[in-house]
Structures are given as C-alpha cells and as structure tokens.
C-alpha cells in the first residue's frame, strides 16, 4: 500500500450518502443492564463525521461520550440504530469482518496508552502493520516518527518513556496504517497540562498534514478549541453541535449544558 501516510484521503467512502461522510451514526441507543438497574447511556444519537475533520466530543461525566465512541469505533454494538464506517454498515458484520474493517479503517488512541511493555517504541508503532502482515514504507515511517518526535526514543521500552512520549507512540501507532478515522478517548486525560497541550498539537497536525479524520473525547476546553467541530453530549443525547469554536465559546456551552 504505497498510498499510506500520504496526505491524500482514501476514496472509497465517496459512494455513501454525501461525499465526505466517513462515519455515520443513526438513531443510536445503548442500554446497559436490564430491569430496574438498566442505564440508558445513549438515547438516540445521530451524527455524520466529515472527512478530514477533527471532531471533539464533550460533556459531563457519565453523559455517554465513551459509549458513543465505542459504538462508532465498532468496539461495542448499539442497542438500536446503525453505524456505517467508510460506507460499510456494521450491523451484519461478523467478528472476522469487523477485524478486517478495523485494520483498514480505524485507529485508536487510549487514555492509558495501552502499549505493549515488551516491545520498543518503534515496534509498538509498527504493530498494526505487522498484525496485518504488512511492511511500512521506510521514508514515510521515518517521517511519521519525526513528526511525533520519537526519532531518538525509538529503541526505548514504554517503561523507559514519559507519559507524553508514550502517548506519542500511541498516536503514531494509530496513524501508521493511515486509517479512515482515528478515535481518541481522553488522550490527554492522563497527562499534565503542558504535555497534554503538546499531544493536542500533534493531533491537530495530523489532521492538517495528513487530512486524518479524527474524533476525540475530551474534558478540556482548549482541546475543543482546536477542533473543527465540537459536539456536546448530555444524558445520552447530543445537546449542542458547534462548528469551529473558541475556548470561550466552549466554556460557555459547557456551563450552559451542565446547569440545565
């Protein structure tokens, strides 16, 4: 796959309703548990994620952000509603098909990095490719490492890296296979403010230079401020859908939602 890591978008999503929609959620609900103790984490969420956009998802704790992410990323299934990724409806896919879809279209950045402790930084980054039995294009791989600032840390183990460096590894790992969309759930949640800022810059840069569609859950207003679109969830529904917004706008919106 020589198109990897190139700043052009892949094109197979074009056929599916609207040229630029790469992830679509329709009337998603998710209920955990049964009977009296049942929790409705999502109560009908519909959204389209545009190609090449950085979408931030915000909302109070327990509002269903993570749940929504998991469902859009095919980690979890909705109780009702449909998800379409890169033109493929997830509804009827079996495990093998979902695995294939994940390899091609989805990248992940976790709050707790989830690096494999026995592999070096470089090997961790390459993992999605080696799982798929592919090899990186050397120049582009070098460029990626450079971009995330890991060139001089490539042979280190996760235990020898700082939290910020570990998250850089995780981001590079999400980008390496040039997925259709990268999902990140509170990627800065486990980092201090300065390091978090650097990571956010990196995320933004990947959107700018690779056109990498990205969806990110965050609690930080300044994170939302670098996004192309900010979604606010409250009680399992989308409460507000802003375009580009300033930190101030975001804080105001948050306050309004929380006080409702």
């Amino acid at each position: 796959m020589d198109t990897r890591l190139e700043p052009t978008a892949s094109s197979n999503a074009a056929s599916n309703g609207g040229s630029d929609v790469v992830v679509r959620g329709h009337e998603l609900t998710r209920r955990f548990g049964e009977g009296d103790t049942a929790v409705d984490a999502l109560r009908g969420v519909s959204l389209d994620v545009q190609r090449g956009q950085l979408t931030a998802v915000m909302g109070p704790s327990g509002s269903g952000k993570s749940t929504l992410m998991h469902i859009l990323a095919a980690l979890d299934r909705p109780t009702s509603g449909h998800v379409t990724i890169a033109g493929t409806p997830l509804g009827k896919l079996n495990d093998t098909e979902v695995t294939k879809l994940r390899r091609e279209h989805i990248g992940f950045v976790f709050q707790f990095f989830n690096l494999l402790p026995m592999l070096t930084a470089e090997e961790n980054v390459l993992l999605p490719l080696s799982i798929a039995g592919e090899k990186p294009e050397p120049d582009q791989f070098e460029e990626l490492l450079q971009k995330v600032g890991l060139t001089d840390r490539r042979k280190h183990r996760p235990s020898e890296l700082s939290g910020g460096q570990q998250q850089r590894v995780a981001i590079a790992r999400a980008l390496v296979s040039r997925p259709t969309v990268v999902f990140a759930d509170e990627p800065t949640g486990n980092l201090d403010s300065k390091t978090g800022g650097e990571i956010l810059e990196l995320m933004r840069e990947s959107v700018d230079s690779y056109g990498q569609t990205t969806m990110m859950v965050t609690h930080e207003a300044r994170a939302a401020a670098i996004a192309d679109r900010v979604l606010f969830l409250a009680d399992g529904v989308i409460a507000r859908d802003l375009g580009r917004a300033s930190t101030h706008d975001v804080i105001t919106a948050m306050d309004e939602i929380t006080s409702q």
Partner: protein
Amino acid sequence: MISVALRGLAGRKFRALLTAIAIVLGVAMISGTLVLTDTIDRAFTRIFVDSYAGTDAVVSAKSPDLSFEGESVAAPPLPEEVLDQVRKVPSVGAAVGSVFEDSAVKILDSKGEPIVKNAPTFGFGLDSSVARFNPLELEDGRWPTSDREVVIDSGTAEDEGFGVGDRVSVATLQPVRDFQLVGIAQYGGVESLGGATFVVFDIPTAQKLLDREGKLDAISVAARDATSPDELVRDLEGALSDTVKVQTGVEQAEEQSEEVGFFVTFIRYFLLTFGAIALFVGAFVIFNTLSITVAQRTRELATLRTLGASRRQVLGSVLLEALVIGALASVIGLFSGLALASGLNALFKALEIELPTTGLVFSLRTVIVALVVGIVVTMLAGLAPALRATRVPPISAVREGATLPASRFARYWPYVAALMIALAGALLGFSLFVDDIGTTERLLAIAVGVLALFVGVALMSPKLIRPLATIVGWPARRIGGAAGRLAQGNSLRNPGRTAATAAALMIGIALVTFVAVLGAGLRDSNRDAIESQIRADLILTSEDGYTEFVAGASDAAKTAAPARVVTEVREETARVAGSAQNVSGIDPDLITTGYAFDWKEGSDAVLAQLGTDGAIVAENFADDKGLLVGESFTLEAPGGKRAELTVKAIADPPPFYPLLGAVTIPKQTFDSTFERKRNRFVFVDVNGSPEAAKPAVEAAVRKYPDARVQTRSEWIDKEDREFQQFLSMLYVLLALSVIVSIFGIINTLVLSVFERTREVGMLRAVGMTRRQVRRMIRHESIITALIGAALGLPLGVFLAALITQALGQFEIQFKVPTTQLLIFAVVAIVVGIVAAILPARRAARLNVLNALQYE
C-alpha cells in the same frame, strides 16, 4: 504477531521457565526410561549376539514351551551321546557341549552368604578348547581345567575383591565347596551384568555339581567351510532324533533376546506409566498457568484486537507461546532424561534389582518421542486457555479492570463434570467387573477411566473450594491471624484457579493413597495367607524365597538335633490338563505337620490314600477345568514325561497366595515324572521353641548356603519388607508427579502475587510487616495443598476399594492405613510450605512505593 507472542514470552522468562518445569519432569521421565531400557536392551542383545557370534547352529532339547506367570520353563538337558552324533555329521566342522544353570549356582561372599541380587545366578560348564564358541571374554587368568577351579564374572570379582589365585566358595546342587579362582571373565561389549553373577566350571565338574551326569544343556556347532548355517541345520535335523531342536546361532540369539525383550518391555511400560502420570499432572499445571496468564493479559489481548488482530491471530499467539514452552521443556526434559536414566538405574539398584548395562543408548526414537509427547501435551493443555483468549472483546482495552469474559460453556461445566465422572464410572465398572476382555483393553479402560475421574473431579472442584477452604483454612485462621484470614480469602477469590492448582496435587495424592491402601490390604492378605497355611516351626526357602533350591538341604536339616519332623515340598511347572501350572510334590504322611490344608472336598485322611496317581487340586483350578473328585487328567513334565492322575480331593488355599501349586502329588510320583527335583519349601517341626532350635538347623544346613532357615514370623516379616520396598519404589516414582504439582502451586502463587502487586503494596502501606506478607502467601499455599489432599485422599481410598472389589477372586482385604494417610496430609502441608517459599519472598520484597505506583 508471531514476534509479539515471542517477545511477550521473553518478557516473562521467569514465569515461562516455571511453567516449562511442569512438563520437563514428565518428559525427562519418558526420555530417561527410553534411554535406560534401550541401554538394557542393547546390553542383552550384545550378550546374546556375541554369545552366538562364532556359532552356526545350536542343538538343544525340545522344550514344551511352557511359561507360567511370565517365567518360561528351562528346557531339560540332552543326553551326552548327541554330541558324538553331531560330530559325525559330515558338514560339521566343530562342536562342543555346554552346561547351563540359571539359579542353583551361587558365589559366597566373604561372610559365607550367597550373593543374590534379584537377578539370575548363572552356572556354566564350558569347553574352552574351541574359543569361537565361548560367549565370554577372559579379563584375567585362564579357563578352569580341573574340578577344583572356577572362573567368575568381573562384576562380582570387583565388588567382593576377589582376584585370580584366591579361594572362592560356590554353592551348587552339591554341598558348598571351595574352588581356586583361576580367571575373571565378562561378556564382550557389556559394562555391567547388573545383579547377575556367573561361575564357570569345566564340563565334567559342572555335570557333577549340577545334577547333569551324562547330560548337556546345549551343543554349539560350527559348519565346515562352504556350508551355510541353514544347510548345517538341515543336515543336523536329518541326522538327529526329533526330540532335539536345531536352530542357527542367529535364531537362537533372537529367541533369547525376545524372551528378555518381553521383560525389558514390561519395565519400559511400567516406568513410562509414571512419566505419563507426571505429564498428565504437568498438563494441569500448564493449563492453569496459561489460563492465569491469559486472564492477566486481557487488556493486552484486547488492545491487539483493536489494532486489527483477528481471533485466529490471538489463538495463534497463545498456542505459539504453548509451543515454545513445550519445545523448551521437551528439550530440557530430553537431556535431563539422560541423567535420570542413571538415577532410575540407581533406584533399581537400591532395590537390589540390578540390570545389565552398557554405554547409554540415546536413540533417535527417544528424541522424537520425548519432543513430540512434550510439545503435544503442552499444546493440548494450552488449547482451552488459547480459545478463551479469543473471546476477549476489543472493548476490554478501554475498560478499567476488565476481566476475561466467562467461557460460553461456563454454566455447563458442572454437567460436563458430572458426565465425566459418569463416564469414568462406566469405564471403571466395565474394566473391573466385565469378565471376558483382554488385558490390554482392561488396562486401557482403567487408565482412561481414572483419567476421566480425575478430570471430572477437577471440573467439579471449583464448587467444592468454598466449603473445603473453610475447613482446611481453620488452622490458618487460628494461627495465622490477619494474614491467615486474608490467605483464606485469597484462596476463594478465584475458585477455578485454586481448584485447578489443587487438582494437580490431588492426582499425586490420590495415587499414593491408592498405593498405600491397596498395599496395606495386600500385606494383610499376604500375612493371613501364610499364617493360615503354615504350621511348621521353621521354614527353609531359597535365599530369594521363590526359586526352587537344592533338595540335599532337606536331608541335612534332618540331622539337626531339635528337628522332629522334616518334610519337603518340591515344585516345578508342567502342562496340566492343557495349561501351564505349578505342580507340588509332597510327603503325604508328613505334610500336615508343616502345612494346613483347607479342604473343600476331602480331608487329611485322603492324604494316606493318594497312592501314586492321586492328586489334590486347588479349587479355582478344578473349577476352571471342570474337574471333579474321581476324574482323571494328564500332566506333562518339561522333559516330556507324562503322568495320568486322578483327583482325590479339592483344597481351597487362600487365592491371594497359595503356597502349593494348582496340583499337588506325592513326592514319589513327582520325582519319577520331573527331571528337576528341587524344593520350594522344607518344613521343619522342632522340639522346643522355634527360635531356640533355629541355630542348630542352620548349622545342619550350612553345607547348602542357598537354603535360608527362618521362623514363621521371620518369613512373614521378610515378605513384608520386600513388599514394602516395592511400595517405596512406587512412592518414589509417584513423587515425581507430586513435585510437578509443587511447581504448579509455585506458579499460581507467583502469578497471583504479580497480579496483586498493588494490593500487597497497600497492605504494606497500612502496616503489614514483611513477615506477615510471607505468612499470608504461605497460608494460601497450604490451604491450596490441603484442598488437594482433601480431594486426593478420599479419591485414592475409593480407587483402592474399587480395585479390591474387582480383584474379589483373590480375596484381598481392604484396610485403610490411617497413620499413613495422616502422613500424606502432613506431606501436603510440607508441599504447601515449600511451594510458598519463593512467591512469599517475592511478595515480601516488593517495594511499597513501586507497588502502589504499579500500573
């Protein structure tokens, strides 16, 4: 993905090694057994092949092909004239006769005791004039040329410090005599004959000393040039009467190798069984360890899934881990087996079962079997955990504290367990109580049944862990304080894990318990059988207690002053009513002073009416053959003589240990029918106490050192001791599987400690001392081990009861040796303590700060 699995394993080297050890021991046992038995086999083959290397044909008497309880009966000797007939055959280049005796000839040590090591004691009469026929090689000195000279084997010479020129006493069928040691010899190409000894006489001397006047056991023949061995055999067969058997040297060597091969095969399978048991236990340990590792790696596996790894890849990575562990363990086991082979040989030696050896034989077959078995067992044990690993959903990567989802079949396990136990019951019932199935099928059904039983109980045991832990955790709670209470709690956290760990030990404990209970019953049965049959004050047997010995000892005993009545019991195997049976020859008028018949039909009065053709038969034999009192049957001796006999009475000796054969006839008839007139027992009735009379009787039979004089209780004690020795060997062999289960406990504890690093840090932070941490781990270990014992002890008793029941026809008693079982429980505690040492140290050493920060 492959590299991820390998790197992961490399990152857990210590744990991987601990896991591997579980299989190493089993594989080592298998490779050790193969190496040892191959070595023994080669030694025997060398002996036979070398023995007949220069021999084109062998002439011997036709043997009736009798074998009783695995021992084939030696062919009777040939008349010496046959040698002259052979020499007259034109195609014969050279021919010499030889005399061969496998039990009566014994070398005496410096204390005057016969050297007997549970192995044959050969006596040869060899014609050393034609070197090519001589199976032996001189290491020192020369061959005997007079009736005062002998050559002995180099092993005995070395052990006893005999050298050429020394005087050596040798027991034969004549009174013991001194000989001049003129040479020391050995079979070519063999390092040690094991426990076997030999003495070489010249032919006339051997004939005189071994009751073979005018007779030879075999004639070795070499062909004149240009005659092939097959032609020679044909020529000889044409010239000789058809009472002799003629074979080529090669055939003769093969025939003898085959006989011994049967015995080596038996040892091989006997030992392999213990290797298989150890592997089975090892499989439990592997299964458990991999299950725990998979559970602990839930998050890692889920992350791999989110990165696009398929279920197959996850399955593959866990199986690859098992493969590497299995391969590593098998290679280590294979080579440890070489060391173990020497260890096993030493074990046999300690039990005075020495086997001939030569340089260790390490065959390709050993390598392949050890590797394949080790790897396959490990992979099979890894299959279930690997399948479970594939059920880790990707979403576990983002869930804090995600655990392995319960297996889809989890709720069916109790039913599967019940089914397994039912299957085990069916198999055991079938194998033990159905009559007409072959031995192989029976053993296989028992083995599979017991296996299924163990697996079934293991599957069931998670349900039993809570009550059991509460019971066996009582001492921990009492003496362990807070640490003890936590320990019990910890053992209950993951019942499946505790159960699998305990199950591994359960198997070992169940098997030693089985051996102990069955052994106790067998010992009692043995004792009762002897006590109910023997009336004599003193009993003479051969040194080993079971081979027949020189008849002269009986006459010698009569000369002892306190001896009131001396009566002898001859024994030999013959074909009776179509099958091989032991036949006893008695003095009808004296036998009741030494032996008590338990009459089924008839009475002591019948003895006086036996005449020459009367016979007493054992009830089970009579039933078998459908013989009734008054009916006739034919007896055919190994020498070919026949006797027509009539059933005069039916006796019912204890089926477990009948001292007389299936058929008992008057000595007179015995002596006129059988070539070999040797005694199995001589019963002596004395004036005064047996203990006081014993020295006088011993002195009287001093000329026959092979005859051992003992009181009734001494005899029973000796049998007890020998039996105990055999049981000890079983314990040593079963210890292997107990050791494997120790590693299982160590593994589980190490993994649990690793998993609870944070928790241990917290406990230390709130004031738990290192000592308390160690105590906590130790008690958890002891509780696990005691659960193993609590499951294993009853299981073992149950199996023993089952077998006792199944062997009902032998009337074996059932007895639970409580003290011994208590000792096993203590052993379980020790196992727990030993297994805890390393994990406890690791837990206590944890740095509090690091432990708390650990993610």
